[in-house]
């Protein structure tokens, strides 16, 4: 299977996928850690792929997403963005809209609290 097929299979089979450096339990980079923190806080059911495990996957994703950095968040097969974008969307409420329009369950109270705490 080509890397591109692997990526398509992963983002097709899972509603929310975070391609990151490290794991949920032990993120290996501050930016990945920040997005894991947001996903956990919002109670998102998400899958992670550690791109440090495979140089081929790492390069393949950069090409597939046309995006040079990690983490990379996908929702329902669509690329959402990296850390800056996810943080901005969480604080603006756009992330709530994205999850709602894609039938992804998230903790609304937590999303509100996150915004309150970062006003």
């Amino acid at each position, binding site marked *: 299977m080509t890397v591109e097929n692997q990526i398509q299979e992963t983002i097709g089979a899972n509603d929310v996928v975070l391609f990151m*450096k490290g794991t949920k339990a032990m993120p290996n980079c501050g930016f990945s850690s920040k997005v894991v923190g947001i996903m956990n806080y919002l109670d998102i059911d998400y899958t992670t792929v550690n791109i440090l495990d495979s140089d081929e996957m790492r390069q393949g994703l950069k090409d597939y997403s046309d995006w040079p950095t990690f983490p990379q968040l996908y929702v329902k097969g669509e690329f959402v963005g990296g850390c800056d974008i996810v943080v901005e969307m969480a604080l603006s409420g756009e992330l709530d809209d994205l999850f709602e329009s894609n039938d992804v369950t998230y903790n609304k109270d937590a999303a509100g609290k996150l915004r309150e705490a970062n006003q």
Partner: protein
Amino acid sequence: MRVEDEIKHSLQGAFNPSELSVIDESERHRGHAGYREGGQTHFRVRIRSQAFCGQSRLARQRAVHEALGAQMLANIHALTLDIDT
């Protein structure tokens, strides 16, 4: 040229920004992954330009990535972007 000046130069030329700051945050990451002695590895960019008008968040970041070029992006370890009109 220092890396932050190169970044400034590229973005100035590409977007004619009304506001532009490039901060080298490398020292804050001493001892972490990607840190190099001498810094110039971790940057925070704040840019305001009418050029981003009507563009999505993804499109804005892509435009900045493109202006900086693959070589620059490969050279630095981390880049935080705050982009608006």
